[in-house]
């Protein structure tokens, strides 16, 4: 069999696709676009607070025991590679988020002026990181950190 028969069009197409996907995956993003929400979880209903997205509330309800989830604050940020952003969620809570590249982030949770925890996580679209704990009156607080697409982050910036 001639050697030339192995260098066929589909073979070269596969090589090109592999090189392309490898190159795309290897290239680090310039910035990480995120949305951070502070959510109050409770079994009581409240008319003074804005409910979160119904679909996301349903997902939270699969794991957490509370029925209602209300948004306390929300922020959209874009963190350049290697940079650190401080996100103030409330008077008692803030996040220091450092983008490590490759969708990896280092998050330091501070409560009441004291560091609570440090997390290194890899964020992915539609795979949020939820930091949570008990609150008063058998309620709970949740800090939801989501990676968003660049176009969605741009829309959020325009909405502001």
């Amino acid at each position, binding site marked *: 069999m001639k050697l030339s028969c192995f260098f066929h069009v589909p073979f070269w197409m596969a090589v090109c696709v592999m090189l392309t996907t490898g190159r795309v995956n290897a290239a680090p993003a310039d910035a990480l676009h995120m949305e951070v929400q502070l959510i*109050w979880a409770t079994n009581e209903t409240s008319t003074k607070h804005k409910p979160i997205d119904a679909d996301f509330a349903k997902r939270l309800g699969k794991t957490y025991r509370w029925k209602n989830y209300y948004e306390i604050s929300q922020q959209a940020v874009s963190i350049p590679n290697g940079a650190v952003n401080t996100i103030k969620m409330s008077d008692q809570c803030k996040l220091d988020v450092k983008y490590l590249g490759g969708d990896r982030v280092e998050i330091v949770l501070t409560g009441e002026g004291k560091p*609570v925890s440090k*997390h290194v996580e890899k964020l992915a679209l539609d795979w949020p990181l939820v930091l949570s704990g008990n*609150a008063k009156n058998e309620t709970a607080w949740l800090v939801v950190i989501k990676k968003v697409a660049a176009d969605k982050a741009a829309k959020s910036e325009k909405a502001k």
Partner: protein
Amino acid sequence: MMNQEAQLKLQAYLDGELPAGERAAVEAWLACDAEAQLLLAELQNTGRALDGHGADVKLPETREFFWSKIEREIERQEQPEPVISRHQPVSVFWWLRQWVPFSGVAALVVLLMILVVHPGQSNAGQFGEMEIAADSMGADVFRDQEQKMTMVWFYDRSGDSQFTESSPLATVNHQ
């Protein structure tokens, strides 16, 4: 013994193919050579015998047409031969036989590379490090593959932590 050249000259004399000068010389030679006379007589007898029994070959076409065919064949052989390409046209089935196995292999390779290079969402749920700042606190990590969420639950180990219950991170007005 008469040589072959003399015999051929006698045959030519008998056929009438000699010019006048050579014909006279042969006649003078025959007048004085008995062996030549006997050979001439034998040749004449042989000629008479063949004349009566030879089959005539008749061509199916006329003489002019026959010679024109020969002339055309000669001209054809004198023309240069056209170059015949060694590459025969390839049929669709030949291409299919070549494409199918290599396409399958290529598709398999592409699929494997996509799975390896783009591991998808599952990688987000498997990676993570955590440090708790206070010894009085604990944390549970739950990576829900079904709901696609990573959840960290902080709890108070000592019971008097400022982090939970007494000092929540979210100040909510219950009104």
